[in-house]
C-alpha cells in the first residue's frame, strides 16, 4: 500500500511566484485626521497594500504590529494604545475591503472623538499612501505527491507562500480558502489537515512562520496517515 505522502495527486500543484512593486500615490497624512480622511477616500488597492501586501514588500523577521496603520501609530504617533486597536482589525475576518474600510474608519472616528485632539507626527514621519502592482508567474516547481509538495514548499520563495496563502484569499473570493488547502482537499482524503491549514491565524504569522506551520501540519497529518496505512 502506498503511503499517503507518496500517493499521486489527480492534478499536480504548480507553485506560482509573485513579484510586487509598491506604488506610492504621492499622497500623505501628517496627522490622525488626515489618515482618517485618506482611509475614507483612497482606492481599495491602497487599503490592500497597507493591510497585507506590504508584508511581502518588506518581509520583517517578526510581526510587532500586523498592518502599516498600526505600525505608523506606534512608530510615528508614539501612540501604542491606538496601535493596539488598529492591530485588532483583522482583514481576514471580513468579507470584503468595503467592510474593512468601514471598520477602520469607525475605529478612528471613535478614537478621535474620545481624545478630542488631533495627534500629528514630526516632519519625516508622515504616512505615505501606497498601492502595489504585481506580476504573477508559474515557478519551475511542481508537486505530484504530498512529499513533493512539502519539498517544494520548503524551497519556494516567500513570495510564493504569500501568493498561495494570503493573496489567494482575495483572489478566490472566499475567506479561509487558500491554494494549498484547496489542492489538498481536491486531491487527497485528509480533511483534518485541510481544516488545520485553514485554521492557521495567518494575520499574526510572518510568511516564514506560515510556511513552517504548514510543513509541520503536513508532517503531523501525513505522518499519522502513513502510520495508519502501515
Amino acid at each position, binding site marked *: 500500500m502506498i503511503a499517503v505522502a507518496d500517493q499521486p495527486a489527480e492534478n499536480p*500543484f504548480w507553485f506560482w511566484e509573485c*513579484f510586487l*512593486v509598491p506604488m506610492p500615490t504621492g499622497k500623505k497624512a501628517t496627522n490622525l485626521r488626515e489618515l482618517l480622511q485618506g482611509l475614507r477616500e483612497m482606492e481599495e488597492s491602497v487599503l490592500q497594500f497597507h493591510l497585507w501586501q506590504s508584508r511581502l514588500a518588506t518581509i520583517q*523577521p517578526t510581526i510587532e504590529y500586523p498592518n502599516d496603520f498600526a505600525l505608523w501609530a506606534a512608530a510615528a504617533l508614539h501612540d501604542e494604545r491606538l496601535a493596539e486597536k488598529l492591530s485588532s482589525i483583522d482583514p481576514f475576518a471580513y468579507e470584503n475591503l468595503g467592510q474593512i474600510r468601514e471598520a477602520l474608519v469607525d475605529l478612528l472616528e471613535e478614537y478621535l472623538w474620545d481624545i478630542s485632539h488631533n495627534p500629528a507626527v514630526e516632519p519625516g514621519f508622515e504616512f505615505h499612501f501606497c498601492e502595489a502592482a504585481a506580476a*504573477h508567474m508559474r515557478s519551475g516547481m511542481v508537486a505530484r505527491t504530498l512529499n513533493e509538495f512539502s519539498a517544494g514548499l520548503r524551497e519556494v*520563495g516567500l513570495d510564493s507562500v504569500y501568493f498561495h496563502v494570503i493573496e489567494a484569499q482575495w*483572489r478566490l473570493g472566499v475567506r479561509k480558502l487558500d491554494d494549498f488547502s484547496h489542492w489538498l482537499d481536491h*486531491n487527497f482524503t485528509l480533511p483534518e489537515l485541510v481544516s488545520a491549514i485553514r485554521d492557521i491565524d495567518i494575520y499574526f504569522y510572518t510568511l516564514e512562520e506560515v510556511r513552517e506551520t504548514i510543513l509541520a501540519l503536513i508532517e503531523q497529518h501525513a505522518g499519522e496517515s502513513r502510520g495508519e496505512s502501515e
Partner: protein
Amino acid sequence: MANLSEYEPLVGKGIIDQLRRLAERLGPRTLVHVNSTRVGGGVAELLRGVLPLWDQLGITSRWEVIQGDQTFFEITKAMHNALQGRKVPLSATMLNHYLEVNRENARRFDWEGDFVVVNDPQPAYLIQEMRSRGKCWIWRCHIDVSRPERQVWRFLKDAVSQYDASIFSMANFSQSLPHPQFLIYPSIDPLSDKNRDLSPEEIQAVLDRLGVERDKPIILQVSRFDSFKDPLGVIQAFRLVRRQTPCKLVLAGGEATDDPEGPRIFAEVQEAAQGEPDIQLLLLPPDSHYEINALQRAADIIVQKSVREGFGLTVTEAMWKGKPVIGGAAGGIVMQLRNYSTGFLVHTPEGCAFRIRYLLHHPELARRLGQKAREFVGRHFLMTRNLRDYLTLMILCQKPGGRVVELDAPDPECRAHEPLIDPPGAGS
C-alpha cells in the same frame, strides 16, 4: 566583471533562476540607462555593477552619459541641492543653459531603446527631444525630493510629467505626477569592494594601515562629517558608555565638501574628541570602499546616529556584514531597523549610549540581531532584488493600466489553484 552565477552562493539559486525566468517572460529587449557621470557617485557605481548582469539576462543594455560644461554641472549641483530642500536661486539664464545642454546631448545621441531609464535631474529634459527614440521612458530619482524647493521642482516636473513612469527610493520622495510611480529601494552589490567577504588577514592589514588597534571593542560610525549624521551626538554617547564599559570609537568618513557647514562640523568633532585616546577620527578619500568594508567587519557595534537621512545605505552595508546596528530614527533607517529584531533605533545620545552598553553586555543578542539583519538585507536590499524589481516594472510597463499581470495561463492539468475570479486589473 561579475557573473550572475557568482551571486548564487550569496542569494541562492532560486533567486537567480527567478531572474532568468522573469527575463525570459519579458523577452529580448533593449534597455538604455542615462546618467551624468561614468565615475564617482552611487548611480555610476550601481550602473557599473548592474550592466553586465542585464546582458547575461538577455536584455541588451547600454549606458549613456550626458556631456556638459562646468557651468552645466554647477547648475545641476544647485538643482540637486534645491531638490533636497535648500533655497538655491536658479535664474532663467541658468535654466536655459541647462536646457541647451540637454538639447545638444539629444542631437549627439543616436541610440534607441525599448526602455529608457533616465537617472536624476541632469538628463531629465532629454525626453523633450528624444521621446520617439524610446518606447517606454522611466525617470529614476535617486535623491531625496521629499521637500523640494518649489520653483525648481516645478521646472523639473514639466519634463518628468512626460515620462511613462517614475521610480523613487522611498515612498516619502514620491510626488504628485500624472503617471505611475514605483518604489524601488536602493541596493548594495555584495560582490563589490565595499561589501565582499574579506579574510581576517585582509581586515587586519587595513586596520594596521589605518592604525586602528583591536585592544577594546570597536564602536564604528561611517559617515560624512555632516551635522545630519550627528557625529557629536555619537561622541557624547561614547563618553557615556566609557564611564562604565571599556570600548573605543572610530568615526570614519569624508568631509562633506558640498556642504558649507562641513569644515566647521569636522573642526567641532576634532575638538570634542581631543584628549580622548580611544576616539579615532579617520578622514578617508571618497573611494575608500575596501577600507570601509574592513572597518565595518572589524567593528563590534556599528552606529548610524543620523538625525536626518535618505535611505541610509551605510546601515544596509553594516547589516549585510552581520553586525548589530544602532541607528537614529530617521528616514529609511526606521524601515531597516526594528528593535530587538534587526537592530536598535534611538532618538538621543543617551539612547544610543544605552543601546551600545546593552549590546556590549549581551553578545548573544548582538550576534542574533546581526544575523537577522543580514538575512533582512539579503532578502530586500541586494542588487539581485534591484534587477528583479526592474524586470517586473518593465513587464508592468508593457501592460499599462493593469496593476496585476499574469505571465502564465493556468495549466489545464492544474485547475485547483486557477483563479476563480479575475484578479483586480487583470484582463481589462
